[in-house]
């Protein structure tokens, strides 16, 4: 590597109360895939935002292709050849693919030419996409293609990708990696942010690790084990959840032929979902986002009532009773969306603890709120789940995503549910906290609770589940023992082709 494409040195950015980046520096060579690793809050997002011109560094400098580089807005970065694919896609659902692409370009050609260019690029890089489709109707994987093609049309020298594979099936990941390798072969560089260490080992040439806003080391991923990298990220070794040899009891939750129509144009209907969950069992449900995960959670938690006879708890039909009644019976649920679904954003943690815990923790005897007890319960959750917050009086909105997640999960776990339905338990949570949450779920199962975990994170599901099933277009595959599965079979289950795998 003679002259690096991009050199960063001494980059520092402080926000009130926290230093997001402290003296960070590294180099990215031409035609290199460079990994940026770190826990949540390690400063990865701030760093890439500085490269992309969304955030102005307090100190430090960047050199692109031998000349100083200090973008003050994204359009400047794009002109210099830096493009970015966001983690939460910056797409507009009501607009079509071509319009979305045009919005990300400096000087878009007329729509008809643009549509042709989109077709050409998508063919060249093996990313099929129809320019006239409305983005709202696309799958998550296809949406990512829109973002990537939008970047590629500007012929970037450096492509920044923020956790690109977190929403893809193993097969889609393979397609993406082929594209990225093709880009590398063309001499383009990629800055690749991910939590998934195995991916980084397979794909990246070099890695820079951030912890607490500081650059704590670099490594060549292919020559480093995932565990070593994880420990560099966390700064100390963390415990992986204990192996499980649980005894399973009677069937706690039986779902039979549950079908529900989609809630709106973009939703997924549930189609004849059948599953059974035993006491002491952890059942993992995988699948690409948007294949009925939310709908399944709503049906099981009681937010949407199901046809009579389709859901039974301990042999009793609960299909037609609502959330509160199910909670009283011991079926608790924690949905995926933290702000606005699992927690009321502007209410304090005490109030949020009260909202789901009122009945089971007896926080409002005779319908009068016992605030002292509610606060104790909230503080209990905060302590046992290591929620970092100045106190229980703080509004849920003020917590970082990972901390709120710990609170939301802890709040349900501490209510000693007989059945716990949980969607994306560790989404956006750093590795150490994720391990703690998983351990809490396993402990709960060891005490005889039945747990259904819906997650996009396959490693997580394989780690904690006894059995695994996958959702595809609202259908649930038959559950199979995790110990009998390999990655390829899982991919086929997620693609809805389990018959071919068996």
């Amino acid at each position, binding site marked *: 590597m003679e002259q690096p494409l991009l050199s960063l040195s001494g980059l520092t950015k402080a926000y009130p109360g926290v230093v997001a980046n402290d003296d960070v520096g590294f180099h990215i060579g031409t035609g290199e895939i460079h990994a940026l690793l770190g826990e949540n809050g390690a400063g990865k997002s701030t760093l890439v935002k500085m490269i992309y011109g969304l955030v102005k560094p307090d100190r430090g400098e960047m050199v692109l292709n031998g000349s100083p580089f200090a973008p003050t807005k994204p359009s400047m970065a794009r002109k210099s050849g830096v493009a970015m694919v966001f983690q939460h896609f*910056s797409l507009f659902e009501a607009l079509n693919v071509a319009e979305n692409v045009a919005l990300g370009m400096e000087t878009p050609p007329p729509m008809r030419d643009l549509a042709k260019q989109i077709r050409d690029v998508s063919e060249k890089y093996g990313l099929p996409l129809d320019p006239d489709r409305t983005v709202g109707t696309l799958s998550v994987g296809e949406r990512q293609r829109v973002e990537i093609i939008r970047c590629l049309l500007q012929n970037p020298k450096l492509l920044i990708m923020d956790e690109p594979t977190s929403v893809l099936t193993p097969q889609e990941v393979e397609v993406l990696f082929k594209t990225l390798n093709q880009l590398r072969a063309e001499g383009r560089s990629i800055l690749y942010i991910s939590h998934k260490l195995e991916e980084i080992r397979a794909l990246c040439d070099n890695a820079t690790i951030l912890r607490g806003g500081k650059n704590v080391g670099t490594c060549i991923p292919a020559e480093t084990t995932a565990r070593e990298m994880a420990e560099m990220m966390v700064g100390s070794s963390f415990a992986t959840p204990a192996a499980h040899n649980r005894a399973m009891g009677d069937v706690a939750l039986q779902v039979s032929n549950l079908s529900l129509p989609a809630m709106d144009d973009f939703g997924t209907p549930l189609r004849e979902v059948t599953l059974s969950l035993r006491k002491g069992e952890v059942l993992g449900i995988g699948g690409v986002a948007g294949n009925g995960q939310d709908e399944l959670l709503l049906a099981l938690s009681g937010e949407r009532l199901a046809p009579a006879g389709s859901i039974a708890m301990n042999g009793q039909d609960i299909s037609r009773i609502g959330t509160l009644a199910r909670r009283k019976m011991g079926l608790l649920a924690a949905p995926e969306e933290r702000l606005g679904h699992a927690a009321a954003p502007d209410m304090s943690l005490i109030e949020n603890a009260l909202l789901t815990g009122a009945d089971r923790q007896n926080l409002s005897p005779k319908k009068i709120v016992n605030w002292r007890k509610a606060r104790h319960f909230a503080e209990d959750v905060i302590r046992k789940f290591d929620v970092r917050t100045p106190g229980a009086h703080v509004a849920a909105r003020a917590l970082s995503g990972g901390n709120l997640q710990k609170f939301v999960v802890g709040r349900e776990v501490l209510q000693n549910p007989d059945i716990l339905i949980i969607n994306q338990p560790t989404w956006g949570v750093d590795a150490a906290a994720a391990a703690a949450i998983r351990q809490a779920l396993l402990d709960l199962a060891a005490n005889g609770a039945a747990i259904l975990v819906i997650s996009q994170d396959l490693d997580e599901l394989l780690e904690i589940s006894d059995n695994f099933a996958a959702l595809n277009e609202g259908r649930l595959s038959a559950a199979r023992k995790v110990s009998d599965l390999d990655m390829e079979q899982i991919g086929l289950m997620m693609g809805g082709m389990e018959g071919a795998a068996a």
Partner: protein
Amino acid sequence: MDLSSINPILLVASIMVSATPILLAAIGEMVVEKAGVLNLGVEGMMITGAVVGFAIAVNTGTPGLGFVAAACAGAVLSLTFAFLTQYLLSNQVATGLGLTLVGLGLSSLIGKPYEGIKSPTLPKLDIPILSDIPVIGPMLLSHDIMVYFSLALVAAVWAFLKYTRAGLILRAVGESADSAHALGYKVVNVRVMAIMFGGACAGLGGAYLSLVRVPQWTEGMTAGAGWIALAIVVFASWRAGRVAVGAYLFGGITVLQLNLQAAGAQVPVALLSASPYLITILVLVIISAKGAHGAPAALGRAFHASN
């Protein structure tokens, strides 16, 4: 009831006149909502436009200047809304309602000396040949310039949103302000400009009421036209063409009920007078029940570039 007393030519001609103020206000509000901002102050900006336009027209003797002043007054008033909601992040619904109250109060203050005066009004166009075509001429082609201006504005807004890059950016801001910001667009600037356009349009609509349709100043003369304009935007599913249809439908029912009253229909007068509002509610209920409305996804949501 004597239906033969209703002259179809005059009926259509007066529908066009009665629809124009609502059409102007509604097309402006549609642009505002397309940018993701819900400005409930249309009524207030309309009546401020009405009184300012009237005052200027009376004092200068030029109705054209009155319209210009009305547009400016509406835009300035909307700018206070823009400042409060876009920079101070106040709640859009509450601020919009406040704007309506301010507009109503301000207009009656300004308008006190002008009560009972007649204003100079816009001349009817008399286009050679065209205006002399029988039936079509007096029905469609001999109105004042603002009627045609409002229709041209609808076409211009439609083309702007569909074909121009600025229109695309405006729609993008209304769909997802955060995404638009991430791509480097100035969300607040776009929204402020949309709000000012909406204010100017509402002002024009108000001035059309006080300078052409009535033409004199009475307190509270907009009589809910701003609210109807808001409803028409929903009715139109945020599409320019349908805004025109909605405004003409409402204008049509308003005029028709007047004609029916004059023709001595055996229906209580109160019910006839209320019919435009009742039918608007009915249509809105039907549209909502159908579920397909196409509202901008970020409508009414505050945006702050804090992350």
